[in-house]
């Protein structure tokens, strides 16, 4: 009988040991702090979310971790499908029992995850999705949604404000192009953005002769370009994220559309986009939140460390993940605990220089926008795949070049 009990205990110990691989003998005292990354793993944004996070975790662990505990990362694939996104959050919170969630890309997915994050009472640091609705409930239902923060990127309302500023003050006032056509994919964030954009441009003294949406599945943009030409527009604002902006840019170039193009083109923010479209993005000016420039003292060191370790240029979620982990670690250190309540209090007081700007939160736990806080840049693809920052003026490091086919 006695041997059976001992045998059972041994077995139990073995099972427990197996269920927690890699946790034996952590360098720092106490169990590791578990960071759950929820991200579309197949995409560049997802790969870079993990690698950016890893870089921050290694830096922090090298200095002894947080509260004497190491950080460790668990990843779940949220894809671009809300259902899978919910499963990813449930896996991380109930099975993996993570202490904080970091991630996001598609706003639709993040919005679907919110109730489940709230139920799990786990802090969520968003680093990829831009819909203002994501943090809206922090104010209206604080008790249940106080866990949600957006570290990156600026929400689409601020992206719209930046775009209005670019179109009115740069394209209109500096370049004299005052007839603006707007085309965007039929997606929630674009439909939210376009009315504000249109109003801002008209209030700023330019005209909007055409504003159109196209299906995200669209593979032939020639009808759209022909309408843009017919509208007499002098500048074409595009707003695309999930649709095939590769195809859009290629067809714009192939059809020799004599109108410069620019705006929010999420795939065109990738450092390798120029090569992917065979150089046909030349002249496109897109909003970029993150690139290798002296935006803050952290930007270039982070960028170079990332390239050195992973042998490729990072996209915006890399910086977001890196910043999110650092600011969580700092908040937990100040709170002297990883309990959600006190950490949230400390997170709210965040004022940190990040890789893409100064990070502070407003009363909805959303990233603050404006000069002195986070800002975006407008960057033009130029000869040989060079990227020139053309706006805002204080960040500019190159001159805007009119695309060859737009020259009269």
């Amino acid at each position, binding site marked *: 009988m006695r041997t059976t009990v001992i045998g059972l205990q041994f077995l139990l110990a073995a099972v427990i040991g197996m269920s927690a691989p890699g946790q034996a003998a952590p360098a720092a005292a106490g169990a590791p702090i578990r960071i759950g990354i929820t991200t579309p793993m197949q995409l560049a944004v997802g790969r870079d979310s993990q690698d950016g996070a890893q870089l921050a975790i290694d830096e922090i662990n090298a200095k002894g971790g947080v509260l004497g505990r190491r950080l460790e990362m668990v990843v779940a694939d949220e894809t671009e499908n809300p259902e899978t996104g919910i499963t990813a959050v449930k896996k991380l919170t109930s099975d993996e029992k993570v202490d904080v969630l970091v991630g996001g890309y598609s706003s639709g997915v993040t919005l679907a995850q919110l109730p489940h994050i709230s139920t799990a009472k786990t802090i969520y640091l968003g680093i990829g999705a831009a819909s203002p609705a994501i943090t809206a409930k922090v104010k209206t239902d604080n008790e249940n949604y106080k866990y949600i923060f957006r570290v990156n990127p600026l929400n689409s309302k601020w992206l719209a404000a930046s775009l209005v500023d670019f179109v009115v003050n740069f394209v209109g006032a500096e370049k004299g192009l005052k007839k603006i056509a707007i085309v965007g994919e039929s997606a929630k964030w674009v439909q939210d953005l376009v009315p504000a954009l249109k109003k801002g441009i008209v209030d700023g003294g330019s005209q909007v002769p055409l504003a*159109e949406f196209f299906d995200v599945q669209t593979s032939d943009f020639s009808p759209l370009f022909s309408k843009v030409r017919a509208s007499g527009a002098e500048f074409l604002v595009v707003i695309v994220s999930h649709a095939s902006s*590769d*195809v859009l840019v290629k067809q714009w170039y192939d059809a020799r559309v004599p109108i410069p193009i620019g705006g929010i083109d999420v795939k065109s923010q990738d450092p390798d986009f120029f090569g992917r479209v065979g150089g046909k993005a030349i002249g496109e000016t897109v909003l970029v939140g993150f690139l290798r420039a002296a935006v803050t003292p952290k930007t270039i060191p982070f960028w170079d460390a990332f390239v050195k370790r992973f042998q490729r240029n990072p996209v915006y979620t890399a910086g977001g993940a890196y910043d999110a982990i650092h600011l969580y670690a700092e908040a937990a250190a100040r709170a002297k605990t990883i309990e959600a309540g006190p950490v949230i209090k400390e997170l709210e007081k965040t004022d940190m220089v990040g890789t893409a700007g100064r990070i502070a939160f407003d009363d909805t736990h959303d990233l603050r926008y404006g000069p002195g806080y986070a800002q975006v840049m407008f960057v033009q693809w130029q000869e040989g795949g060079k990227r020139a920052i053309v706006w805002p003026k204080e960040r500019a490091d190159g001159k805007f070049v009119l695309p060859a086919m737009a020259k009269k």
Partner: protein
Amino acid sequence: MLEILLYGAVTSAVYALLAIGFTLVFGVARVLNLAHGSFYALGAYLTFAFGTRLGLPLFAAGPCAVIAVAGFGVVVERVFVRPLRRSPLAVLLITLAVALLVEQGLFLVFGSEVRNVPAFVAANVSIAHVDLGGQRVLAFVVSLALLAALRTFLLGTRNGAAILAVAQDPEGAQSVGIDPNRTFSLVMALSAGLAAAAGVLVSPFLTVQPTMGLLPMIKAFSIVILGGLGSIPGTLLAALALGYSETAVAYLTSGSYTELVSLVAILLTLVLRPSGFLGARAAM
């Protein structure tokens, strides 16, 4: 208006190329091949692989891709479809499995990123002030040439005659000495090659990514239902109708509605005229 005429012609020609193989396979073997879109995707990816990765000139990479995919079509027929031909449901499932296999294979080998196939013809072609882009003109011309070649093959050669004979009456064809299996292999090769050719021709101005086969598959399906399953003239007519109505919808209303056109066409056909334009019998 002129733009609708020109762009619609390009779209219709490519659609015809895509759908004609699908209808041939159905006509000859009564097989609904759900892997048809994979042939299209493979055509585009192999052009990328041969042209960009191996450095072959594009005009060699394209035809090589078409031949390779035609071979793949024969393999699919021999290995997966032939043993199951007696059960239409099993064939439907196995071709769907092949489609998913190809998609996942492309993800594994090439990753999820969009790949760039350079234009075969970089020159810009303007017809009456409409800038078409040389690649579109090439796609149109080559599509027409391939369709004409197919017609000559079907009507002017013994193998072509065998295909038409099996399509008309499989037992009758067998009784005069035509091997139905050999004929079916030939049709699969043709069908896969033509779909791959469509993929090769449009890849420089459309997206090359692992899921690219689905939408063309739906288009081919709609065209074949609209034209009448198994009817070649019906398929050509339907390709023209769908190509032009999509282009017209995009120009006259909005690009958000184009993808609806083919689905509405399927619904209307099945409700109002299940045999399609020129089909001999009801589609289902």
